[in-house]
């Protein structure tokens, strides 16, 4: 009995368990060590948590695009991070001109709404063009082909923005009403900008979720992601639905881009890469193709990334642990794909992957 059980596992399985076990041990030991030193008070942890939540909400907005497109085309839209970037970038020109003309100070809410709209529209335009030029002609090609096109498109957008607008980072203007903090009593306080990001991202996500679940288009999207051919037989215009999916994902990414820029106040042509790959990680973490999964995974990843480096590594005496936050996120991506490729909430992937 035992022998047969042992035979089911190969040496690679053991290797992977060993690696996984080692990492878990490291995390547990590191966390205990950090907590025992007591260098960080409850307020610190609370700040990390809120920051992680804000960061995670932005990831969630990006991750929706990955997950929607993956659900329908079974393809990683590599250029989605650049869709995010382009929205943020173009909105910069609008918000700076508003800032110069004084509109931003006089009427901040209207100004921010316009800026948000510009970001969304830009991202949508970029995504639609992308789909039309780079992806649609390749719908029936072998899988490697559209993937390489997507990588090409991603770098094209990055480089085009860099050469069009210059390679230095640009500073997003300060918005007066978003400065400062809101006190929660005691030591605890939340920055206003973080409240804005979390709340607006939450609202957008809820809206998107209901769009996909309750509207006719959303229903058609789900049908197409289930089975393209059958959906076409049922009278659904598959091409149109795919375009709408890209639009939806891009709109969320554009909004995410503006929120991200408001929070970190710096933009450049390569700003999309890291949030993009993090959002993808989050989408995989939650189970790609699954909307609530993407949201949950993003919040989880955001918090993990903001709390993790200090909690896991500081106690182990690692110098400058914050430099390694990307390593933590990427390691998590690899671990999730190895141990639970279906993600936290995913179930269809195991079949779809083949």
């Amino acid at each position: 009995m035992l022998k047969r059980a042992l035979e089911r596992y190969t040496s690679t399985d053991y290797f992977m368990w060993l690696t996984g076990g080692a990492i878990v041990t490291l995390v547990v030991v590191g966390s205990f060590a950090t907590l025992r030193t007591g260098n960080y008070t409850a307020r610190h942890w609370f700040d990390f948590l809120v920051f992680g939540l804000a960061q995670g909400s932005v990831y969630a907005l990006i991750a929706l695009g990955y997950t929607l497109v993956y659900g329908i085309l079974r393809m990683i839209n590599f250029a989605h991070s650049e869709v995010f970037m382009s929205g943020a970038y173009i909105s910069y020109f609008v918000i700076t001109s508003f800032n110069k003309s004084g509109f931003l100070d006089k009427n901040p809410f209207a100004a921010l709404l316009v800026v948000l709209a510009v970001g969304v529209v830009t991202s949508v335009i970029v995504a639609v063009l992308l789909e039309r030029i780079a992806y649609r002609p390749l719908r029936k090609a072998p899988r490697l082909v559209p993937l390489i096109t997507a990588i090409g498109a991603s770098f094209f957008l990055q480089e085009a923005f860099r050469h069009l607008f210059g390679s230095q980072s640009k500073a997003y203007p300060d918005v007066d009403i978003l400065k400062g903090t809101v006190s929660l009593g005691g030591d605890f306080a939340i920055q206003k900008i973080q409240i804005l990001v979390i709340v607006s991202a939450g609202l957008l996500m809820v809206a998107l979720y209901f769009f996909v679940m309750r509207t006719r288009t959303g229903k058609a999207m789900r049908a197409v992601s289930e089975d393209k051919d059958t959906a076409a037989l049922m009278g659904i215009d598959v091409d149109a639905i795919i375009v709408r999916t890209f639009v939806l994902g891009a709109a969320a990414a554009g909004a995410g881009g503006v929120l991200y820029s408001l929070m970190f106040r710096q933009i450049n042509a390569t700003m999309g890469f890291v949030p993009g790959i993090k959002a993808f990680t989050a989408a995989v973490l939650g189970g790609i193709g699954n909307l609530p999964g993407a949201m949950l995974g993003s919040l989880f990843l955001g918090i993990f990334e903001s709390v993790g480096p200090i909690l896991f590594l500081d106690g182990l005496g690692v110098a400058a642990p914050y430099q390694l936050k990307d390593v933590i996120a990427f390691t998590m991506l690899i671990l999730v794909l190895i141990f639970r490729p279906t993600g936290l909430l995913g179930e269809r992937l195991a079949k779809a992957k083949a």
Partner: protein
Amino acid sequence: MNKLQSSNWFMALQIGVIGGIAAILISLLGMVEEFARRDIIAGVIEMGQTLLLMALLATGYFSARRSYTTRSFLRVIEGGVAGAVVGFLLWLLVQLIVALDLRTIFLNASPALIKILTFGGEGGIATFGLMFTLGILGGLAGALIQILPTRFSNATVQGLAWVALLGLLQDLIRVTLISLPTIGDALQWMFGGRNEKGLSILGAVVVFGVVAGVSVLPSGQSSRIQARLRALPAASQQTVRWISLALAAVIIFYLPNLLGSILSNVFNIVGLYILMGLGLNIVVGFAGLLDLGYVAFFAIGAYVMGVLTTTAIGPQAGQIVYGPQMTFWQALPFAVIISVIAGVILGIPVLNIRGDYLAIVTLAFGEIIRILAGSDFLKPYIGGSQGVVQVAKINIGELDFNSPQKLYYLIILAILLATFISWRLRDSRIGRAWKALREDEDVAQAMGIHLVSTKLMAFATGAAFAGLSGAILASQIGSIYPHSFKLLVSINVLALIIVGGMGSIPGVFVGGLVLVGLPELLREFSEYRLLVYSILLIVMMLNKPEGFLPETVHRRELHQEDSVDARPEPRPSAS
């Protein structure tokens, strides 16, 4: 009839708008201005204008090709219309730049650009007329090229391409000519004067005439030679092959003396990329595993070489705390072996991951390695962001490989070795297993292919080549920094093997020479290298996914759908 024609004009306008947007992009991306310094034909046309002209010709060409009519005259006129649209859009761009002060947004919308676009004109109606007329003429010329019989249009395109190419590469050609006294002097008239760049007018005309003339000739000539060669007895064919091989060997051996140290250095960089390309070709081309973190193995090779051989050891800044101070040859096996081990370690967890996921995971792996290399955490051991300096130079006994010309031979040797290994692996049992894996993993497994060892073998071989390349690079430069190992390197290598043809060994060489060699030679071009690569990736995938020197299997595979889908799709009826 009327309706048909109106849709035809609409098509011409549409293509004109697309061409115009392309021309505007070329201008605003800064290419026109940046390339303006490089003359193609001295005093007549420079590279930036050539780019715009190419956009214009292409607009005319495609509008004539897409046209619905069969009447040549109408098609040429349509080309003119499309060209006119391009001219108009560029004029509009100039007006907008001046009126709205677009320079605050678009970095390259500078007075210099306007000067180039308007030919120094003052604006107003004269400039508009000039740009509009030039647009029409360009469009007409493009359309004319298209309606010529295929033989002539090909000859024209080839002639123009060669003029552009020789004009671009005139630095290189001149340097080479100087070292060949008699032939060099005899060819001096082809180029502009001492202080001018680019071809002379006479040179351009002659180059165009010769190339166009040769390609317009009945194409039987070359195939007749081939046929005669094939008719020879096997033994003589073998001799011919050996002679041509020997000839190639002599040229390769003699090349560095001809090129001088700067150009040899370019060749060395190309060589290192070819070495990496050969490795990635095994992983992506043979086994179909898309690896975007390939640079990690390159980095590991370089770092192992650096840490093992550096003499900068100590507690001060720029030094690392521990290092055995080996020589290059002692460290080289470690560099390769540790890269291979890293390849296997990456390979094991990703065994069950396919396609897109594999791309992302390998990308993440590459980033992890780069971040770790630059982190303060590992700084005492591998130098952090300050890197490792004073890496050992390469020598054999008394012979130092300190100049690019000498290093060239070592790199050639490494490439030969790698080529031989890939070539033998391709046709071996494992090579066929890789191909099966690429086609269908499940079927391959059902056929009795051991997935684990096959995949690991691909990762390990690929990693070995990259490690070797990295180790040589570390000693060549003498210092290594984490920022040399960005994702871009992986993308460069990927672009190189895709342009050459995935899975094709000669394709790696062609890709390396074109994609790495050209930007190194044309310095102002290298700023736009990544932009051009990315466009190349997209265009190649859309039009020629098998690459320029495709492997037979790949060609068949990627064009198999054409024959199946050749049947016209049933159109939804208009009712």
